[in-house]
């Protein structure tokens, strides 16, 4: 990974110095163990900040969208012929490129407004799994060596196989290498294990209905409506979310049980054919809500019913804005 990091910095520097991009969105070291944070590099001399490691969890496509749109807004009062474009260089793994593809399909910006620095991905570490591995103790230091992560806590040091603490999204990832690339960094990464992609969903589907309901209500009850899941999601870019509209008011703003359920259900439903399973929403959730359990169901249905995988193919139209005459309709009620 050090090689990738080095190459990434070189390429980023080239792009910035050559004025091919205005900003490079990547990851930098955070202030806490296990943490990287999105960084925005505008000066070629700052590229040393860029890192690429197993702590890089977030899907950065969100920032590409935000930067471009903020720039456009700032140009609202500039004469059309004098408007400039802001070109965003973005460090992108497989899932990030899928989100970029969705943005492009949904005409959020032009292909010429982004430069994709593709990075091969071997998965990122789930902080939730780490917390479970050390029984909630604070991590004072962590180092990844090969396939092992060693975690230093006040109680001592613990070594855990990396595979045990990777995010669920990563373990079964089908697209860990970038699908849309301008500059590829390093070699393609070995495949993950997509065969087990829907195991979780299948198992859940087979539970008795009341158990499913209990699990759903229990998970939703954790939500504090902080909107971190929504705000980190590259596919959630509405200027005003339905949850915050006042005319009409769709749902109450509080943490009433059903209002939270409605909010999450509807947000999840907005992800039909648009969720790339990057796991960012799960990773940022301060309460550890198991959102993936429900998002992945839509992914599965999208594929099994309509052979659609979100953001996997730029030429494949979005799931809900397309249809076939012969789409399945065995769910349609027939009174005869």
């Amino acid at each position: 990974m050090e090689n990738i990091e080095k190459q990434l910095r070189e390429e980023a520097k080239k792009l910035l110095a050559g004025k091919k991009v205005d900003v490079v969105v990547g990851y930098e070291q955070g202030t806490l163990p296990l943490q990287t944070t999105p960084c925005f590099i505008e000066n070629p001399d700052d590229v040393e900040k860029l890192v690429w490691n197993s702590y890089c969890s977030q899907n950065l496509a969100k920032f590409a969208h935000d930067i471009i749109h903020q720039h456009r807004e700032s140009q609202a009062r500039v004469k059309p012929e004098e408007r400039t474009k802001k070109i965003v260089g973005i460090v992108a793994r497989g899932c990030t490129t899928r989100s970029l593809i969705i943005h492009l399909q949904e005409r959020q910006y032009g292909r010429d407004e982004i430069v994709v620095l593709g990075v091969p991905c071997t998965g990122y570490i789930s902080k939730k799994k780490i917390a479970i591995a050390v029984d909630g103790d604070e991590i004072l230091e962590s180092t990844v060596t090969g396939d092992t992560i060693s975690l230093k806590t006040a109680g001592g040091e613990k070594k855990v196989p990396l595979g045990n603490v990777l995010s669920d999204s990563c373990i079964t990832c089908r697209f860990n290498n970038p699908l849309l690339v301008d500059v590829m960094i390093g070699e393609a990464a070995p495949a993950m294990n997509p065969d087990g992609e829907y195991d979780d969903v299948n198992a859940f589907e087979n539970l008795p209905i009341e158990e499913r309901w209990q699990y759903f209500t229990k998970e939703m009850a954790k939500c504090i409506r902080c909107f971190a899941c929504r705000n980190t999601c590259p596919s959630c870019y509405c200027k005003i979310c339905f949850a915050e509209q006042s005319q009409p008011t769709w749902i109450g703003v509080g943490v009433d049980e059903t209002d939270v359920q409605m909010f999450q259900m509807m947000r999840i439903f907005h992800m039909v054919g648009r969720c790339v399973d990057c796991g960012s929403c799960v990773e940022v959730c301060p309460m550890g809500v198991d959102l993936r359990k429900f998002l992945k169901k839509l992914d599965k249905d999208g594929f099994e019913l309509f052979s659609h995988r979100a953001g996997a193919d730029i030429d494949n139209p979005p799931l809900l804005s397309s249809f076939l005459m012969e789409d399945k309709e065995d769910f349609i009620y027939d009174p005869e």
Partner: protein
Amino acid sequence: METRLIKRDALAGIVKKLSEQMTVYAPVKKEDNVFFKVLEKGEEPLLTYANTKNAPKNFFFPQTETMMGYMRTERGMELKGDNIADMGDAVLFGARPCDVRSFILLDYVFDQEKYKDPYYIDKREKTTIVSLACVTPPYSTCFCTSVGGHPMIVEGADVVLTDVGDNYLAEFITPKGQTILAKLGDLPTADDATLAKKEELVKKAEGEIKSQVAGSAIKPWLDENFEHPFWDTIHKSCLACGTCTYLCPTCHCFDITDEVKGDEGKRVRTWDSCMYWLFTIETSGHNPRTSQKQRWRQRLLHKFRYFVDNFGAIACVGCGRCVMYCPVNIDIRKIVNDISKL
């Protein structure tokens, strides 16, 4: 002041028993997280927790609270009266000193001479606060000493428990605390050696807080530099989620909304967050804080400048929650320290 000893392994049971007589709000482990919640029948509090995920402010100032109910009549909606639930006496058990200090700060806001907030005050007055001193800091992100606190500060607490080895030293500081003592059964009086040990721990505890922040030192800079290029550097990765404000023990901004179902309705107050762009937007569409940069500046200035101007204290208790749980690792300690170097 009464000082007693409670056997280390007896404390959880004593609290459990107390919860049969009155409402007890205490830390409990739920799946992977430790939360403050009302103890249910037979439930024991967790004593070996580090710091809870949610702040205990929720007890006095819940995330969603019904303010008043009303009903549809021929003349339109008519008030049924306010909704100050009489929960009776309660105990907030095991709050860390930083969280206890947050109530002093919240009192400044909710318990003013001219306008008193009856919802908050009612619960606050009926609740006895039992604090659990931090002999060692729960986390390396704790920075209470930098913002006017101390890991073993007793300010704001009615009863303070200190882990002195085999026993907890229980100090019943206020008259409210004394009434709780009566409910705890027979407890041996603390000996001088224990009291001396506590004094020693107090001296030691301050040094245990390793994280240092230039809390009050930045006030003059903040006073002068509302416009400064520095403000362009902190907000870029911010998701504009409300995690920091919702987990913060001192954040108190709220929204008031109405909810109606059929012929009945209620007015509820809900936490709001200065991190949201809708927070300040006016009906006309004008928004005094349109960018995340302005919102971040507001959050920082509110805590480290405006609150100091209005009430003489920093609106931060150094619990470190926003540092630990920020999804993108925006670290308020780093921001404050960066400012102090400008």
